[in-house]
C-alpha cells in the first residue's frame, strides 16, 4: 500500500534580505517526518505559529522547500516541472480556512467549480459538464439552483461547501484541509465535519486535516500528529494518543481544552 504523502526531514526557513546584504532568517519547519497512508485521515494539531499552515503551503508547492523531501502520490515534488505539477494537481486538492477569501468574488458558483475542469479539459461536452456540476453540488448538499449565484450571496458554511465541491471536481486521491471549519459557527461546523467524514469514507480519500482543535481532530482523524515550533512532538493513532498522551506538551494542550460537563445527553 503506497503512502499518499511521505515527508522526510523537511526544513523550511523564510529568508528576508535586509539592506546591505544582511540576511534575516526565520526557521519555520525544523525537520518534519510524516506519512499519510492511503485512505486514512491524518490530523495535524498545533497552536498558531507552530508552522502547520506553512507545511500545507510547502506540500502544495506554493512555498519552495529549503531542504528534505516531500513525495506526493509517489512523486517527489522538489524541482518538479510545471507540466508535472499540473498532473499532480489532479491527485491532490486543498480546502482553505477562510470561506470568504478562497472564492473569487467575481465568479459565479458555476465558474468556480468549472475552473479546475476547464484547466484540465475535463467534461468539456456541455451536457456532460452540466450533469457533473449538478452531481458535485449534490455531493456537498448544495441546491443546484445556486450554480448562477455569486459568493457574496452565501453564508460561511455554504461557501465552504462550494470550496469543497471545487476541490472534489478533479476527483483527487489526496485532500489537504487547512483548518476548514475554524472560521465557522459551531452548528455549521458540525455540518461540514460530517460532510468531510462522509466524503473521506465514500471516496476513500487520504486527508491531511490541519486544526488547532483537539475535539474536531478526535472526531475526524484516524491518526494525529502534534506539532510545536516547527517539529512533530508526538505522532500516534488517535485513540491511543487521547488514551495516554506521552509528551508533556501534548498533555498540556489536552488539559487546556475546555470541555462541557456531559449530563444525561
Amino acid at each position, binding site marked *: 500500500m503506497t503512502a499518499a504523502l511521505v515527508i522526510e526531514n523537511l526544513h523550511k526557513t523564510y529568508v528576508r534580505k535586509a539592506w546591505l546584504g544582511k540576511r534575516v532568517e526565520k526557521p519555520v519547519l525544523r525537520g518534519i517526518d510524516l506519512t499519510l497512508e492511503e485512505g486514512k485521515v491524518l490530523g495535524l494539531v498545533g*497552536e*498558531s505559529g507552530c508552522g502547520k499552515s506553512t507545511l500545507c503551503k510547502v506540500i502544495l508547492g506554493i512555498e519552495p522547500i529549503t531542504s528534505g523531501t516531500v513525495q506526493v502520490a509517489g512523486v517527489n515534488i522538489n524541482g518538479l516541472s510545471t507540466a508535472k505539477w499540473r498532473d499532480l494537481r489532479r491527485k491532490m486538492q486543498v480546502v482553505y480556512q477562510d470561506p470568504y477569501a478562497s472564492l473569487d468574488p467575481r465568479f459565479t458558483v458555476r465558474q468556480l467549480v468549472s475552473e479546475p475542469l476547464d484547466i484540465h479539459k475535463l467534461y468539456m461536452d456541455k451536457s456532460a459538464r452540466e450533469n457533473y456540476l449538478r452531481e458535485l453540488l449534490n455531493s456537498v448538499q448544495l441546491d443546484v439552483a445556486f450554480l448562477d449565484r455569486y459568493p457574496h450571496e452565501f*453564508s*460561511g*458554511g*455554504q461557501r465552504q461547501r462550494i470550496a469543497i465541491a471545487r476541490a472534489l471536481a478533479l476527483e483527487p486521491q489526496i485532500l489537504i484541509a487547512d483548518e476548514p471549519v475554524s472560521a465557522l*459557527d*459551531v*452548528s*455549521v*461546523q*458540525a*455540518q461540514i*465535519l*460530517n460532510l468531510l*467524514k462522509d466524503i473521506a469514507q465514500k471516496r476513500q480519500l487520504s486527508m491531511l486535516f490541519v486544526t*488547532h*482543535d*483537539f*475535539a*474536531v481532530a*478526535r*472526531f475526524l482523524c484516524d491518526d494525529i500528529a502534534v506539532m510545536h515550533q516547527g517539529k512533530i512532538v508526538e505522532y500516534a493513532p*488517535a*485513540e491511543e494518543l*487521547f488514551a495516554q498522551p506521552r509528551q508533556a506538551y501534548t498533555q*498540556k*494542550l*489536552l*488539559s*487546556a*481544552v*475546555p*470541555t*462541557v*460537563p*456531559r*449530563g*444525561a*445527553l
Partner: protein
Amino acid sequence: MTQAALTVQDLHLSFLTDEGALPVLRGLSYTLSPGKILAVVGESGSGKTVHALSILNLLPPNARVDQGKILYQGKNLLSMKSSALRRVRGRKIAMIFQDPQASLNPVLTVGEQLIETLRAHKRISKKTARKQAAELLTKVGIEEAEKRLEEYPFQFSGGMCQRVMIAMALALSPDVLIADEPTTALDVTIQAQILRLIKELQQQSGMAAIFITHNLAVAAQVADEVLVLYAGQCMEQAPASRLFSHPLHPYTQGLLGSLASVERKEERLPAITGNPPRPGEILTGCPFAPRCSHALKKCFETCPPLYEKDGCKVRCFLQEGK
C-alpha cells in the same frame, strides 16, 4: 433578593441600513446577580456583541436602541447624560474585548494607557498612578511590571495584551465586568490561563460579570448561569449545572450535540440543519422553527413566550405544559 448588579429589560435594537432598519435584538431581558458570572452564548448574527456594547453606549453610529432599559443601581444607562455615563464607564462597569492587540493604542506605552485610566477617575499624582499600574500588572500575572510599563502593545503577545486589558478593566475595581469573547482570538493554552485569571479575580473582588462567547465549552469553564441567544432573542436561561445536564430548548440541545468532544470519539455529530439567520432577517413565529426537528405547526405562526420554572427560562412550546 439583594439588589441586582445589572438588569436588562426588554432590549430592542436595530441597525440602520440603506434598506431600512434591520432588527438585531428583539426584546432581551435578564438580571445579573452580584458576584455571579452570566455567560451569554450565541452564534454570529445572534446580537450578543451589540447587546454588550449597548450597556456602556459604545454602539456604532448606525445602531439604534428602539426600546428597553438597562438598569444599574436603579438608573437607566440608556437615558443617562453622557457626563454621568462617563463616570460609570471604567469605574463602575468595565469592559474587555475580543482582539486584545487591536484594543490597545499602538502609539502609547502600556504604562501611559494604564495610568490614564487611573487618573481619569481618581485624583492621584502620576507617580502613585504609576506605582498602582505596576501593581495591577503584577496582579494579572505579568512579570517585571516596572519595565513592561515602558513597552508598547506591539511588544506584547496576544495573551499578554489581554492581561493588560484585564488590568485596565480592574484598575478601579468595578462592580460589573463585561467580557466580549475575550479568549476567542487566543490559543487554547493561553485561553485556559486567561479564563482561570478572570475567574480568580472575579471571585477575589466579588464583582458580577457578563461573559460573551460563541463556544459553550468556554462558557462552561467560567459561568454560574448561562443565557443562550438566537436571532436576538433569549432561547433558554438557566444555572450552568442544570443547562448542561438538562438542556430544555432544542437549539441548546443542538448546540451541545454539534460540539465535538475531546473525551470520546463520536461516529456522527448530531448537527443542526440549515444556517443561522442573517442579522435583521424578518422572522415570523419562533426564529429557530425552520431548523428545529421538533417544530410544530404553531411554532411557525407565533413566537413562544419565555416559560419560567424554578430559575430556568425556556422559549419553546414543547415546554408549555411542564
